[in-house]
């Protein structure tokens, strides 16, 4: 079964540190999404890419968050500097644009704790 792979699964760090989360989309998928899940806000879309180009990052705090796709097999989400309010579970999902009746496929997330 093809899967979206996210690393690390867990990250605990101190406020002010840089955090990098990685995602390997399903091979052949050309659209990648980053979501954040918290108890208070639920599931929020932070950013998404198509063919490695950012299409929408309006959900992302621009001053500290950045998202990139260095190549088709890797998407990264960085937080610098991190703050306690960034503590959440971050999910990556991938899909194939053009097949709009198909679901997005989610990874198992990175659980981030900022102390």
């Amino acid at each position: 079964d093809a899967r979206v792979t996210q690393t690390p699964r867990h990250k605990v760090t101190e406020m002010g540190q840089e955090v990098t989360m990685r995602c390997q989309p399903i091979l052949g998928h050309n659209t990648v999404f980053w979501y954040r899940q918290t108890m208070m806000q639920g599931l929020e879309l932070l950013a998404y890419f198509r063919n490695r180009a950012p299409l929408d990052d309006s959900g992302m705090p621009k001053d500290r968050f950045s998202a990139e796709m260095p190549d088709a097999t890797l998407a990264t989400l960085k937080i610098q500097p991190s703050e306690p309010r960034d503590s959440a579970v971050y999910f990556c999902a991938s899909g194939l644009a053009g097949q709009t009746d198909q679901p997005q496929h989610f990874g198992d997330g990175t659980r981030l704790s900022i102390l």
Partner: protein
Amino acid sequence: AQSVAQPEDQVNVAEGNPLTVKCTYSVSGNPYLFWYVQYPNRGLQFLLKYITGDNLVKGSYGFEAEFNKSQTSFHLKKPSALVSDSALYFCAVRGRKESNDYKLSFGAGTTVTVRA
């Protein structure tokens, strides 16, 4: 704009009883509708979808969902719930007019607890 409402934060049922998780949607034009399930410490897993055709859609793990255009609803159902169905369930919608965008709008989620 597209949106989804899941009116119940929690649903509690006894094992063996029918399970229903409610979802209503709002889109321009016809919708693509999806249900996902999330188990603890896992990502969202696709359960089923409605694209076109039969209003009753069958999916994984014995779940089904009924599309009702007049009521703009897409309720998830299972005739006989299992303890292992206890999880967080999300409804999602994508409008066909927004299909080039490929973004999904998710509901807030409904926590299902099935007691033995």
